[in-house]
């Protein structure tokens, strides 16, 4: 029976997505990958995941808009972790103001990510 927790990952770097998918699926989660913000919103709408991982800088719809969409339009409290490159503190602050739960600056350790995912999904 599959009651694995679903995670939507919005990341345009395919190699990184693959790595994270591998890692997180080993921990028993189900990963849905979106290559940009638009796809992410669609996946979130379709599958109603337990957790969302999103990069801030993405083609077309930014990570910030994804957060805004989930918190304000969908009115959901799904835990959200954002990734950001160094030097984007302003963006990270905005993400938190919009309702993100945690952030990881790139480069990050996948093991660390797993720990935080587990913590938020407890």
């Amino acid at each position, binding site marked *: 029976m599959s009651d694995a927790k679903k995670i939507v990952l919005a990341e345009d*770097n*395919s190699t990184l997505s*693959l790595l994270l998918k591998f890692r997180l699926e080993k921990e028993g989660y189900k990963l849905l990958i979106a290559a940009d913000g638009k796809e992410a919103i669609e996946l979130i709408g379709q599958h109603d995941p337990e957790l969302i991982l999103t990069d801030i800088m993405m083609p077309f719809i930014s990570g910030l808009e994804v957060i805004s969409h989930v918190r304000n339009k969908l009115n959901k409290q799904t835990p959200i972790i954002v990734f950001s490159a*160094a*030097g984007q503190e302003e963006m990270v602050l905005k993400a938190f103001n919009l309702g993100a739960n945690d952030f990881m600056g*790139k*480069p990050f350790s996948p093991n660390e990510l797993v720990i935080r995912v587990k913590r938020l999904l407890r």
Partner: protein
Amino acid sequence: MKSYQYFIDYFKNAPAIIQVVWVMIVLFMVIITILIIYLKLLRSRLRKNEKIVAQYQNEYESNLITYLYSGNEEEEVSAEQQLIVDKLKSCVPDKFKRRVVVSTLLRLRNEISGEMAESIQKLYFQTGLINYALSSLKSKKWYVVAKGIRELAQFHVKEVNDQIVIHVNNPNKEIRKEVQLYLVTLFHFEGLKFLDVLQTHLSEWDQIQLLEVLQRFDEQEIPNINPWLKSKNDSVVIFAIKLSKIYNQFEAKDTLLELLEHQHKKIRVEAIQVLSHLQVYEAKEVLKNKFNELSLEEQIAFFKLLENVFESSDETFLQEHIQHKNFEIKVSALKIFKLLNIEKFHSFKRLLSAPKDAEIIEFIENN
């Protein structure tokens, strides 16, 4: 045959210039035909290459991920991993494939840290990719050398430091830049030592790239920047000023105050901006005393500084300048006044009755 003969005769009898024209016509037609054929071949080749690159990318991506997750506790390199290493090793001599392997490794290397990153590094060595980067350092073509240095920086290969450092004063700008980025990426703030001896100009672009690399590292490591602030190389001074701002180098306060007398206006203005950011009160008096000799840009920067460090003793000075013809200075002065002395601020409404001024006062009042 007759018409053919006709053309030959015609050609022989035509004036020289017409002969030239017809020769060129034939030449052009031949060239155009050749180019059309070549174009078709070129496009097919480009299309094919793209497909192949996508294919290889997928392949190497999964190879990489498998490699990263098939290690075990006992051995340095597990059997599964060795298989992948050997496979990649065989691909690497091919320039095309090598490029795809490197870009795949880098796409991941730049995003993650920790033991995964170290594994990727190991893979870089084990597959022999490093040797190609090293040999490119000896190339005669500048872009090959620059690319090689960049690759070695991205894979954090400290071992080759000696071979790279010799290029520090290379006549080519791009190579020098890559060397600087290498030093800073690998040795963090220590790598900035090249600033001590830099003769050439550090462009804004270079400075920003260096700063962006430095951002990733622990701020505590920043060395004493005073020598750089006193450098004869103006671009080094500007870079040091940026450092003092980003890393809040209050210790450099005195040297920064000295820079208010620097011969270049740009440096003086940047110094004022940093002193404003660091809220250095001493700067206020120095600049206030020679306000009228300052250039307009310095004056504007000074007022921005005043917005941060104003005191009630500045009231008389401010009052002299609320009617300054420069918009930004006027706004700054009025803004400060509103905070300093609200009644006097209201009294200005009568004094500054011109519509543009009234607009400014109203805006400041409400915001």
